[in-house]
């Protein structure tokens, strides 16, 4: 995950200006989409100067699943970006 981006050339998108030498930090808010586009294009206008090694458990928003409703649980799995190799037997189990 990108933590810090340094602006190597003064960038302009509409009225937004990011001056050369500015360092954008993820802690100050999400990176502007135009800056992320520059990262993707890799044309020397920005440089990613810090990345985090991995995602810690604390960074992932907690999802509370109510397993009383099998259809609801199934929908959550379908709509999320989680691949389940085996049948989610435990999640489908009804309350005793």
């Amino acid at each position, binding site marked *: 995950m990108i933590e810090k981006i340094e602006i190597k*050339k*003064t*960038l*302009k*998108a*509409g*009225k937004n*200006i*990011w*001056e*050369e*030498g500015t360092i954008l930090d993820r802690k100050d808010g999400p990176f502007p*989409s*135009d*800056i*992320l*586009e*520059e990262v993707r*294009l*890799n*044309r*020397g*206008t920005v440089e990613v100067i810090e990345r985090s090694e991995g995602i810690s458990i604390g960074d992932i928003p907690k999802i509370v699943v109510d397993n009383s409703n099998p259809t609801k649980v199934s929908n959550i799995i379908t709509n999320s970006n989680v691949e389940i190799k085996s049948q989610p037997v435990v999640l489908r189990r009804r309350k005793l």
Partner: protein
Amino acid sequence: MPRGKADIPELRLEVLQNFITQFMSPPDLMLMNLFGSSPSPSSTVKWESMRGGRGMTPFVAPGSPSPRTAPFGIAQHIAEAAYWKEKMYFDEEFLNNLRKEGTEGEYLDSKTRLARELAGLVNRSNRRKEWMFAQMIFNNGFNYMRKGGYMSSVDYQIPSDHRVTLAGNARWGETAANIIGDIRDAKRKVKEDCGGKINYAICNSTVLAMLADDDTIRELLQKNMFGEGNLFGSGGGNDFVEANANVIARLLDIPNIAVYDEMYEIKSWITSTLSGGSSTWVSVQDASDFTAFETVRIHNNTTGAYEDRVILSVDTFTNQLQIEYPTDNSYKAGLDSVAMRKYFVPDNKIVFMSTSIDGEAIAEYKQAPFGLGRQYGLQTDKHEEWDPEGIFIRVRDKGLPILYHRDAIYSIEVATTAAASATSTTTTSSSTTTTTTA
């Protein structure tokens, strides 16, 4: 019957100098003719530049002393003048043809050739001067060789907020492009920072096409809006893009939009064998003027065949060019060559400027003295060789463009060039790079 070379009228110095002065101001080179020139007392050029400078005298109580003031935003700069020269050899066969009697055709051919070669030399020298102006305006500086082979860089210190690159989808031609808004911002920035009114915009035909193809500009130029319906096809169009830049200039209220498509060409010999299908590094005699993301043409001078490759990086220390992928054929050292053509004005930039502030030109060319006679400006001389008999003709010049008002220029990088999409990094390694400006 005259036998010495001194008797050949076409090779007398005053005649050579006359040839040179005939080509002094080539009409196709625009940037070097945009500003004036003056002599510098030494080859170390000193100048002061200004930012802002619209102060106002303060109120003071009657009977109290005047507060002391000094000009704001003044910076002093110092840089060594750049020096460039080259010579061309004319052998005895050519000289004999020049004075052969009774063969009017050959005589005229030789004179024509001499004139053509001299014009070529002068144009090459002037293109170097033009290149320096282009680098100052579009790239904020350039590198050049100093005494002892050291590479220097001159940095004109145009403020970074006057050199903007459009980001993401705001690039011209993309979904969020706002060309008129970007030009308004440029006008306002220059006006607020130095008080100048933008009177010149310079781009090449690639950027003109972006302006002419913009939906907003086209809509405004329709007959039922603010235009006369003459953006295209009414005469006065650009050589490559049919659009008339003057129509856009009137809409944007910029007195001059110069669409400048002049190019320069760099050639160099290959110095070690380039193996087809394997090597991606080309060794050349001099790599200093080649630039990354431009197309280089590799010539087989025996067969006349060639291959084009994009340069990914330039190593000026080892004189090597990295190309995107290997050539299909092999090329021989010392026999085959590479060539690169490039526009003085980049394909993806437009510059707006106010050419004078309060009646003073924002830039100037400083001529520096050179040679034993402290000559100024473009000069030519000759040197005779005894064996093999022949003559060298030399053209040389020394000077530096300087910028007095750093905030009167505003450049926008409006797009990504096609070649720049080839992803890589430039490795211009040189252990002798120094910066000479303050």
